[in-house]
């Protein structure tokens, strides 16, 4: 489930949005806090609908939350 190619700014966005806690974000997007922790740590790549729900909470686009790096695919 680990995804090294996918990075995210969830932690930064949470603090920029009134220091939102992981639990508050989890409740807003309808997942458990453990899942938010796993996504933030890059241990779990969320589904597309969940990625959109997270982006909507912060009023930004999915690309502003998640970044895909093609470097990881080349194994360098």
């Amino acid at each position: 489930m680990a995804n090294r190619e996918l990075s995210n700014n969830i932690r930064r966005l949470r603090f920029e949005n009134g220091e939102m806690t992981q639990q508050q974000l989890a409740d807003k997007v309808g997942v458990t806090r453990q899942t938010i922790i796993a996504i933030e740590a890059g241990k779990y790549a969320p589904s597309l609908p969940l990625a959109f729900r997270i982006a909507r909470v912060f009023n930004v686009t999915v690309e502003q939350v998640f970044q895909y790096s093609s470097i990881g695919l080349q194994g360098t």
Partner: protein
Amino acid sequence: MIYLTFSKVYNTFIGLNSVNKENFMNRAQKMSLTLVITISLGLFLGIVLVVMRFFNVGIPKTVFLFPIFFAGSGGIISLIFFRKDKSAITSDERDKLIEKNANLAGFGAVYLFVILASFLPIGIMGQKGSIPVTWCPVLLVGAAFCQAYAQSLAILIQYGWGGGHGKS
């Protein structure tokens, strides 16, 4: 009262902060850990009894049911003490994915168990050998424990052997 005391003791035992409830393992992890512990102890006890019987220590056959009851107690403990919390979100897409992978691991373990159970007797006793028919239900119980053990281990490994660690 007993339930609350058990939960507190158990959460302390598994090394989680009893003050911060958010760091607790989720229900699937607690159930899996309980099953891994009880099945491991049951397996150990079974091996000890087999070794004792091998060295002709006087043990009645009914004692061999004890490790099975011991191993199976994990399921009963899980059902009684780890109830679903209906007031909160307890599972999501990640939990479902973990459960799916764990089911696959359990199926794979049973498959391997059946292969071993089919060929080991031939290897040990030869083509002309015979085994008692009472081995059939024993193999069924063995396959069930094998599945539960592999599934529980897969759940614990995928969650990372811990609770919801991390900073808010």
